[in-house]
C-alpha cells in the first residue's frame, strides 16, 4: 500500500501538501482536538472532502479536510510482512486436485492495518486458511483469470474448457473451479457441453458470503468440492453450493440443470426439475440420481471448447413490441432462445417476425420462463403456429442452458440439420425424460 489511493481534490491536496501517504501514522489538528491515526485508502467513488483515519482502537473515522488546521507525520508506514505459517504436511498418497480460480475470492485474508482484503493465492495460503484441505487432497491452485462473473463470455468458457482438458491429461483426479456466483450456472452448462465425456469430476464452486468474513460459506463449499472431486466415483460437471441455510449439507447440482434463484442466500442454487445429483455431509457423498456417469479410464481426453457468440436469450413479455423483436432478430445473430410464456408461447402478432427470421436461416428455440416444467407447443393454437413456423421446442431444458447450448451447437455443427439435431440430443442431462417436479 502506498501513495494516496482513492484520494482526489481537496483531501488529496491537503495530504500532498504535508507529504503523507496511505499507511502513515499522522496527527491531525482539527482546531478542537488532535487525533492520531493511520491514514487509510478511500474508495474511489467517495467524496473528495474527507480523509479517513484508522484510530488506534481499530475504528475508522472520516475528517473533513476543509476543517483541518494542520497535519503532522508521526511515523512512516511500514509494509506489513505477512508470514504464511507452515501448512500442515500433505500425504503423498492423497488424490491430486487442480483448483482453478476464475475470479472472486474463495479464501482471503484481511490487512487490519488498512482494511484491505487480499485473496489467498498459493496452495500454501489456501492450506493455511482452510487446513482441512491438506488431509483431503494434494491441491495445485492456479489463478486462471481474475474477473467478475458477470463479465464472463463464451471465449472464457472456451479457454477454461481447454485448461480443464489439459488438467485431465496431466492426470488430476478431479478439477475444482472457483467462480463468482452470478453466472456460475451458465459456465457450468457451457463446460457440461464442452467437456462431454470427461472422465473425472469437474466441480464449480463459489460463495454467497464473501470469504473475508468468519461466517463465509466459501470454506465449506470448497472443502466439499475438493473432497468430491478427489474421491466421488462420478464424472461430469457439477456445481457445489450450500443445500440449505446451515453449514452442514453441500448440494452437487448437474451443470445443465442448476440455476441461481436468490440474490444473496447461501442456498441460492437449486436443481431445476430434479433432485441435486448428490449431497455431501462431513465427507460422505450420497447420490440422489441413478443415471450419473462414473469415472472412466481414457487414454487422452479431447474437449469441444468452441462457442459461437451470435445467439440471444429473449424473454417474452406482454406487449412485446414488434419493432423491438425485429431489431433483436436483425442485429446479426444466428439463433435466438425464446423464454416463452407458459408452455412456450409469444403473442400472435410477433409470430410472423420469428417466421421471417427462420426463413432467412436463423434458429428459434423455445424454452419457458416458468422455470419449472416442460415446454409443450401442441396444446394451444399459438404453440402450433410457432411449431409450423419452424420454432424448435426444448422440452425440459432450462433457458440459460438452452442459450449456452445453442452457442455450442452452432460452433460444433456444419449444417442446419446438425445444429437442430445437436440441440435435440440429450448430451449432459439437459433433457429430463420424466418430469417429477
Amino acid at each position, binding site marked *: 500500500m502506498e501513495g494516496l489511493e482513492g484520494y482526489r481534490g481537496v483531501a488529496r491536496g491537503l495530504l500532498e501538501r504535508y507529504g503523507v501517504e496511505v499507511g502513515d501514522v499522522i496527527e491531525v489538528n482539527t482546531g*478542537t*482536538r488532535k*487525533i492520531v491515526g493511520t491514514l487509510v485508502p478511500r474508495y474511489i467513488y*467517495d*467524496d473528495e472532502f*474527507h480523509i*479517513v483515519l484508522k*484510530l488506534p*482502537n*481499530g*475504528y*475508522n*473515522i*472520516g*475528517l*473533513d479536510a476543509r*476543517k483541518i488546521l494542520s497535519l503532522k507525520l508521526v511515523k512512516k508506514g511500514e509494509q*506489513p*510482512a*505477512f*508470514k*504464511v*505459517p507452515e501448512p*500442515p504436511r500433505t500425504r503423498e498418497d492423497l488424490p491430486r486436485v487442480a483448483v482453478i480460480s476464475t475470479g472472486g475470492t474463495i*479464501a*482471503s*485474508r*484481511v*490487512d*487490519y492495518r488498512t*482494511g484491505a*482484503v487480499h485473496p*489467498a493465492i498459493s496452495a500454501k*495460503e489456501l492450506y*493455511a*486458511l*482452510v*487446513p*482441512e484441505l491438506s488431509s483431503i487432497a494434494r491441491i495445485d491452485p492456479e489463478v486462471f483469470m481474475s474477473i467478475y462473473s458477470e463479465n464472463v463470455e463464451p471465449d472464457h468458457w472456451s479457454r477454461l474448457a481447454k485448461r480443464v482438458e489439459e488438467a485431465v491429461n496431466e492426470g488430476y483426479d478431479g478439477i475444482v473451479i472457483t467462480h463468482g456466483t452470478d453466472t456460475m450456472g451458465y459456465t457450468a452448462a457451457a463446460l457440461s457441453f464442452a467437456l462431454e465425456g470427461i472422465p473425472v469430476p469437474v466441480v464449480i464452486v463459489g460463495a*454467497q*458470503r464473501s*470469504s*473475508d*468474513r*468468519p*461466517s*463465509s460459506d466459501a*470454506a*465449506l463449499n470448497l472443502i466439499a468440492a475438493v473432497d468430491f472431486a478427489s474421491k466421488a466415483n462420478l464424472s461430469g460437471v457439477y456445481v457445489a453450493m450450500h443445500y*440449505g*441455510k*446451515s*453449514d*452442514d449439507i453441500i448440494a452437487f447440482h448437474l451443470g445443465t440443470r442448476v440455476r441461481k434463484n436468490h*440474490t*444473496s*442466500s*447461501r442456498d441460492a442454487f437449486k436443481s431445476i426439475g430434479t433432485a441435486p445429483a448428490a449431497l455431501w455431509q462431513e465427507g460422505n457423498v450420497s447420490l440422489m440420481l441413478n443415471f450419473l456417469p462414473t469415472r472412466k479410464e481414457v487414454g487422452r481426453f479431447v474437449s469441444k471448447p468452441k462457442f459461437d457468440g451470435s445467439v440471444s436469450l429473449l424473454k417474452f413479455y406482454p406487449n412485446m413490441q414488434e419493432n423491438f423483436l425485429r431489431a433483436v432478430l436483425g442485429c446479426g445473430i444466428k439463433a435466438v432462445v425464446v423464454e416463452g410464456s407458459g408452455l412456450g408461447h409469444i403473442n400472435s402478432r410477433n409470430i410472423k417476425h420469428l417466421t421471417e427470421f427462420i426463413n432467412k436461416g436463423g434458429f428459434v428455440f423455445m424454452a419457458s420462463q416458468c422455470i419449472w416444467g416442460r415446454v409443450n407447443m401442441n396444446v394451444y393454437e399459438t404453440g402450433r403456429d410457432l411449431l409450423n413456423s419452424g420454432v424448435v421446442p426444448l422440452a425440459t431444458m432450462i433457458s440459460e442452458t438452452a442459450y449456452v447450448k445453442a452457442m455450442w451447437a452452432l460452433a460444433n455443427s456444419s449444417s442446419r440439420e446438425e445444429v437442430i439435431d445437436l440441440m435435440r440430443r440429450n448430451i449432459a442431462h439437459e433433457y429430463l425424460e420424466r418430469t417429477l417436479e
Partner: protein
Amino acid sequence: MSTPRAEEIGLRVGLEVHQQLSTGRKLFCSCPVVKTEEFPFTVKRKLRPSQSELGHIDPAAVFEFLKGKFNIYMWNKESSCLVELDEEPPHNPDIEAIEAAILIALALNSEVVDEIHVMRKIVIDGSNTSGFQRTAIIALGGYLEFSGRRIGVQAVTLEEDAARVLGEDEKARYFALDRLGIPLVEISLDPVTASPKEIEEIALALGRTLRSTGKVARGLGTIRQDLNISVSGGAVVEVKGVQKLELISKVVEYEMKRQSGLNIIAAKLREKGIKEIEVKYKEVQPELFSFLPDILKKDVDGKHLVGCIVAKKIAGFIGYEPYSGIRLGKELAEVARANSIGGIIHSDEFQKLGLDINSERKLRVALEADEDDALILFVCERERSEKITNALIERLKYSIVGVPPETRGPTAEGETRYMRPRPGAERMYPETDIPEIVITREIIDSISRKVPVPWAETVKTVSSKYNIKEDTALRLFDEGKIELFSEIVESTGLPGPYVASVIVDTVAWALREGAEESRITDSLLRETLSMLSASRITKEAVPEILLKVGKGEASSPEQAADLLGIRPMPEEEVEKVVERIVRERINLITERGDKAFSALMGEVMKETRGRAKGENVALILKKKIEEISRG
C-alpha cells in the same frame, strides 16, 4: 484483612455502558424489536476463527475450531429477517438511530465525527451470525458532569446488539436472533480512581443522562455495563455484562480484593526467592486411584484420566487467602470450569477433604513430588487433557506476576468469574456493504436544538417549582414520569407532593397488589386524577381505581368507579353511617372519650370504602363524639 482502599492500591476503573435505543427497529434492517420465546426456525453455522488474519494465524486455534461446536441460531419471522441470518447484506443504517446517537453524543459534550464509517469488529463466539459486530464511532471526547467533577468520555459508538445466548451443550451453543441488530450506543469513559460506590454513582449519572434524551430503551437487559478494572502493577481486567446497577460497587469491591490479593500472593512468592513457577505434568495411573480424595474418584471412568500438575516449592500458596475468598485455588478452578471441566483439587485442601497422610505420601512418591510442592489434580476426557493442562499451567505461572489480563463475568452476588483471556487488539475492518455517512454542520445544528437540559437541573427545577423533595423529583425522573407529573399538576391544580406520591408510591403499591405494569398507563393516571380534581371521586378512591384498572377488571377509571360503587357519598349518608357506628360503639366513647376517635374513624372509613372524604368524616365524627361526651 479488610477490603483495601481505592487510592492505596491504585484502583482505576473505566466504565463502558451499552444502552439499547428506543427506536423500536433494528439498526441494519427493518425488523421490529419484538421479544417472544417462540422460535420455530433454526439454522446451524460454524465460524472460522483465523481465516481473516493470515499474518497471525494460529493453526492450533484452527484445529481446535475444527473439533469445535456448531452455533445454532433460533429465530422467528416476527423479529428477524435474512439480514440477521447473515443471508442478506445489511441495509443502510436507520437514520433515527444515528440521530439518537448524535443527540446522546451532544448531551455528553462529545465531538461528532465528520463522516461515520461502519466497521466490522471480529467476534467469533457465535453471538453474531456474521462473525463480526457492526459498529461505528459517532463522536470523540466529551465529559460527564458528576458531583462537580468532569469524567472524560473517550468515544460514543453506535453498534448492533448481539444475539441472545440461550444455552450450550457438548455439541452446540444456542442463540436467539431476536436481539441481534437492535441499535446500541456505547459510551466509554476515561478510567478513574474512585470508591466502588462512586463508580456505581457515575454509572447511574451516565444512565440518567442517557435517559434524559428520551431516546433509550428501559427495562432489564436494555443497559449493560462493562468495567475495565486495574490496580497498580496489574493488568486490566475486563468484567463484561453487568446488567444491574447495584452490582457495580460489589463487582468493583470484589475485584479490588481479588486483584490486590493476587498481587500479595505474587509478592510473597517472590519473597520466598521464587523467580519462576516450575511445573511438570503427570498423569495419575489407575493403580493410584485408591489414594485419591473421594471427591475425584467418582468421576473417573474409561474415557477420563486424572491429570496432575506438580508445582515446585509452592505448597501452601494454592490455598492461601490474603482476603477471605481470594486464593489461587479458586482462580485455577475457574480456569478449569471455563474449559468445561468440573474444577480442580489441590494439595493444600487434602486435609480438609479427609485424605489421610499415608495416601498423600503415596501420591507424592508416585508423582515425584516433594513435601513443599503443590499438587493440582483434575479429571477430564483424554483428548482434552492437553488443552486443559496448558490453560492451568499458564494461569499457575502467572501467579508470580500478579493479575493476569482476563475477561471475567459477574455473578449474581457481585463476584466475578473467569471467562476467557483478554483478546488482543480489536480486529476491525470496514463494512464494505455500507457507504460512509457524511454528517454536516446542518445535521448537527438541528440535533443540537434537541439536547436536553442536564437531568440534575431538571430535577432541581421541578422540585422547587412544584414544592416536592429533590429525592421525589429524582424518582419521577428515573421512572420517566417528570413530564407526566408536571402536566397533571398544571392541568388539575392538585398539589405537587400529592400527585408525585400517586405516580410513585400508589402505582408501586398497585403493582405489588397485582396490577400489571402495562395497564397502568399515563392516561389512566391523568384521567383518574382529573376525576379527583373535579370532585367526582375521593382521594381515598384513587388507589382502588388504579388497582381495579391495573388488574384488568375495569377498562377505564369511570367504569372502575362505577363497579367499585365509590362515587362520593352524599353528606347525609355519611352522617347516617357515622351516627350508626357512634351508636353501636357508645360504650367505647363513654369509656375513652376523645381517644376513641381514631378507632371509630377507621371503622367509618372502612364502611364507606373510599366514597367519603376523610376530612369530612373526621369533622362529622368529631362533632358526634363531642355531643356524646358532653352528654
